[in-house]
């Protein structure tokens, strides 16, 4: 191999690249938070006995799980403004698209978590006179939440990696900054090696903190 690595292109432009990393983290966190709220609602709706509640929830999940994330991203950015007249910048469109995509998976995670809780837990709470909502909030969700941590981390990691797609629409995330820097410095190997390491580090950190959280919550086992 005759290529000589020059990583000073990375160190010289560290601030530029880290600004992209910050955008990546912000988009991912925002998408996760929004996705969780939508996912919880859709997931619980899917469990409803009423078909006119469960049906649309199922359709929502299927549509967003069975279309490519990149297509969703482009659709929200280019098509949604035309259809609705809403003008959104690329950052907001991308966050919404990622949130919606994530919410479909998160809804299934919530549903699975809730369904995994033994029916007896609900019956015990209801016979004590607790309402459906109180039972969910105090008995089912706290237990379901713990079981949801591993699949939730998987989804967070997936979303973090998906977020690199927003570079296609010109959002200045880590991948976008790397592309910009590559075209001006002609050093894509060093730059893309570096950002791969950054993505890897972020994902590993996520998994690690989730494992710690899981251990901390395991006091009742």
């Amino acid at each position, binding site marked *: 191999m005759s290529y000589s690595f020059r990583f000073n292109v990375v160190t010289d432009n560290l601030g530029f690249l880290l600004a992209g990393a910050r955008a990546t983290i912000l988009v991912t966190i925002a998408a996760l938070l929004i996705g969780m709220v939508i996912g919880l609602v859709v997931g619980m709706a899917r469990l409803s006995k009423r078909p006119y509640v469960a049906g649309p929830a199922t359709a929502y999940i299927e549509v967003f799980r069975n279309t490519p994330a990149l297509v969703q991203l482009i659709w929200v950015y280019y098509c949604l403004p035309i259809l609705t007249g809403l003008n959104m910048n690329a950052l907001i469109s991308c966050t919404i698209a990622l949130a919606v995509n994530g919410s479909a998976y998160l809804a299934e995670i919530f549903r699975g978590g809730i369904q995994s809780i*033994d029916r*007896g*837990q609900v*019956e*015990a*709470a*209801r*016979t*004590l*006179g*607790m*309402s*459906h909502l*109180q039972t969910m909030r*105090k*008995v089912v969700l*706290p*237990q379901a939440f*713990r079981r949801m941590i591993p699949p939730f981390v998987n989804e967070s990691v997936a979303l973090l990696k998906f977020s690199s797609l927003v570079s296609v629409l010109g959002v200045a995330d880590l991948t976008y900054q790397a592309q910009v820097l590559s075209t001006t410095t002609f050093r894509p190997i060093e730059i893309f090696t570096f950002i791969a390491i950054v993505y890897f580090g972020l994902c590993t950190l996520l998994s690690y903190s989730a494992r710690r959280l899981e251990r901390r919550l395991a*006091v*009742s*086992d």
Partner: protein
Amino acid sequence: MGSASPSAMVRLERVSKSFGSLPVLRDIDVEVKTGEVVVLIGASGSGKTTLLRCINCLEHIDRGRIYVDGVPMGVHDESGSFRPDPERLLNHKRAQIGMVFQRFNLFAHMTALQNVTLAPMMVKKLTRGQAERLGTELLGKVGLADKLHAYPSKLSGGQQQRVAIARALAMNPKLMLFDEPTSSLDPELVGEVLETMKRLADEGMTMIVVTHVMGFAREVADRICFLHEGSILEEGPPKQIFTAPRQERTRAFLSKVL
């Protein structure tokens, strides 16, 4: 309103229920007086557990009426016709009936004390302090004063079931339903749970108990109902049921379990 006699805590009038095409309860008529302990016996599939679960509306009955303390369960009188209870009303009615399950159903993520204090705080709006005083007292009463902060996974089956009894008692119920409370316990742990139930009976609690422990039925029950294929085939004081059953089927059942 039901025309239950003043001393009737529970009254079932022609209660029927099917699971799909399978009838599980057929025209059940039974009354439980205040302070009475009634034990339901019968083969599995005879409808004992379903009967119990219908009383607090964990199962919905197809026909008939169930009154607890004169109040119809699951329905209410609205200018002459019975309407299904809205959730709030049903919750209010359920809160007055304690239930103990075969598999304990303790909230797995909560300590013994938290299990007992949750419903009083959520439903009766007791303060944490009030609820914890009550919970400590009740857990002491079932012999678990030293296990207040233990999680269910750290307790034996017998201890878990006693926590479950304390949890039900914390709502100060008028009636306690026991659904095979000792069936998933190791044999050596059955006694402590039955002892707790016996004490409760002695204090005058109205109880309906589904059990396979005939010794308990004989010792504690005021009356025994023998269920067969969804009907109460025979009822009477334990002495009569155990020594001189009138029905051939009762005799056949008892010869198998005694």
